[in-house]
C-alpha cells in the first residue's frame, strides 16, 4: 500500500509529509516532523499530554489520524513561544514551578492557551473544568491552576 501524501500547515509554516493510513498525528509529529514537544502518555485520549490545536481547537493528537491533517492548520507546543520570547503562560509556569517531571506540561500549556484565547477572565472553576482532560501525576494541580489564573490576570492587565 502506498503512503498518503499530506499537505498541511504546522505552526504557521506549510508542511508536507508521507504517512500510513492508520498512523496517528502524534506519531508523525514526533517522528518524521521531529516535533517531540507533544508527549504520548496514554495513547487513548485520556491524559492530554499530546494536546495540539487543529484550526484553533484543542484535540488529542493520539486520537487523530495524520491523514486528517490535509488542508488543516495544526498548532503544537513548538509554536507557542515567539522565538526566544516565551509565552506568558510558559514564563509563569517556570517562575512558579507549576510543573515537576514536565511530561504533562506541553499539553497543559496548549490547553490553557486555548482557554485564555476564548475566556480572558476565567474562574478557578472554568480553569479546572477546561483542563480536566490534562492529567498531571506530580503537582496535585494547584500550582498549575494558580499559574493559569495569574497569567490570565497579567494578560488582562497588559491589554488595558
Amino acid at each position, binding site marked *: 500500500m502506498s503512503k498518503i501524501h499530506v499537505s498541511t500547515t504546522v505552526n504557521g509554516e506549510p508542511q508536507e509529509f508521507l504517512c*500510513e*493510513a492508520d498512523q496517528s498525528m502524534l506519531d508523525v509529529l514526533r517522528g518524521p516532523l521531529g516535533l517531540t514537544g507533544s508527549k504520548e502518555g496514554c495513547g*487513548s485520549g485520556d491524559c492530554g499530554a499530546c494536546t495540539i490545536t487543529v484550526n484553533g481547537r*484543542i484535540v488529542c493528537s493520539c*486520537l*487523530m*489520524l495524520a*491523514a*486528517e491533517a490535509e488542508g488543516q492548520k495544526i498548532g503544537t507546543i513548538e509554536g507557542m513561544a515567539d522565538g526566544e520570547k516565551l509565552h506568558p503562560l510558559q514564563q509563569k509556569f517556570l517562575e512558579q514551578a507549576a510543573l515537576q517531571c514536565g511530561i504533562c506540561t506541553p499539553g497543559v500549556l496548549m490547553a490553557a492557551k486555548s482557554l485564555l484565547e476564548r475566556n480572558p477572565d476565567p474562574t478557578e472553576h472554568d480553569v479546572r473544568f477546561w483542563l480536566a482532560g490534562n492529567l498531571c501525576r506530580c503537582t496535585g494541580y494547584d500550582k498549575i491552576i494558580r499559574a493559569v489564573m495569574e497569567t490570565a490576570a497579567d494578560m488582562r492587565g497588559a491589554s488595558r
Partner: protein
Amino acid sequence: MTDVQYVAPRTLDEAVGAFAAATGAARILAGGTDLLVQMRAGVVRPGLIVDIKKIAEMTTIEETAGGGFRIGAAVSGATLREHAKLKKAWPGVVEAANLIGSTQIQGRATAGGNLCNGSPAGDSVPAMVAAGAIVTVQGPKGRRDLAVEKVPAGPGRLNLTAGEIVVCFTLPARPKGSGDAYLRMIPRTEMDIAVVGCGVSLTLDKGTCTAARVGLGAVAPTVLLVEDAAKALIGSKFGAGGLDDAALAKAAAACSAACRPIDDKRGTIAYRTRIAGVLLKRTATIAAERAGRN
C-alpha cells in the same frame, strides 16, 4: 507497512460508494475518539477508513424551514456548544453531548459517532431520544429516516444495513413552553461513563404537561424510550413546587420498571434500577423549569 486505506470523500455519494464497496471491514471516521482507541486496542482492524468530515452536510448545523434543527452526524461537541440558538432550543441535547470527555475530546467527538458506537451508556443518545430526533441514513439503496431509538440494536450493534451511513439528526420545532434536560449518574464529577443517564423533554401549556418524552441510558442493552414514564408526566400540573409529586413518582416507577441492566464495576442491577427513578425526577424537574421559562 499496513494494509489499511484512508479516504476522505467530498460528497456523501462518494462516501456511501466507498463504504459499500469495501471488501473488508470498513469504518466511518467522524471524531475518531472511539474508533482510534478501538484500532489501537486491536478491537477493530478496518481495511478501509472513510473520513466524513470533508462532507459539508455532515459537519454543519442548519435550522430547518419548520423551525427545527438539522445536525450533521460529524458535528463536534464544541461546535454544538457554540451554537447559541440550538443551545437555547435544546439545552438538554447540547449538555448531554458536552458531558462526553474532556475539552480535547469535545473538539472531535460527535453525536453521530456516539450513536454509532452503539454503547448503551452513550450520553447524547438518551437526550436525542427524549428530543424525538429523527436520524437520516444513506446507503446504496438511497436515503431513509428513522427514529433515533430505532438505531441501536444492542451493545456495539446497529439496525443499519450494509453500506448505510448516519448523515444527520433532525430535531423538531419547539412549541412554546418546551424544555429538555439530561442528567447522568457517575461516581465523580466529570469524565466518566454513565451508570445511568436520563433525558427528558416536555411541553407545558398553562401549567399542564401536554407532551413528554423520556430516554434512559445504561440500564438495558440499548438506550430506551420509556413511554410509560412520558404518559405519567402528561396531564400533570407544574406549579410553584414544581411538577406534581404523584406524577413524578409514577414516572420514576415506570423508569425503574423499564430497566434491564447488568451488574458491573460501575453499578449493580439494584442500584441502576433505583437510580433510574431518582434521575427521572431530577431531570424532569429541570426540563419543567426550563419549559416554564420558554
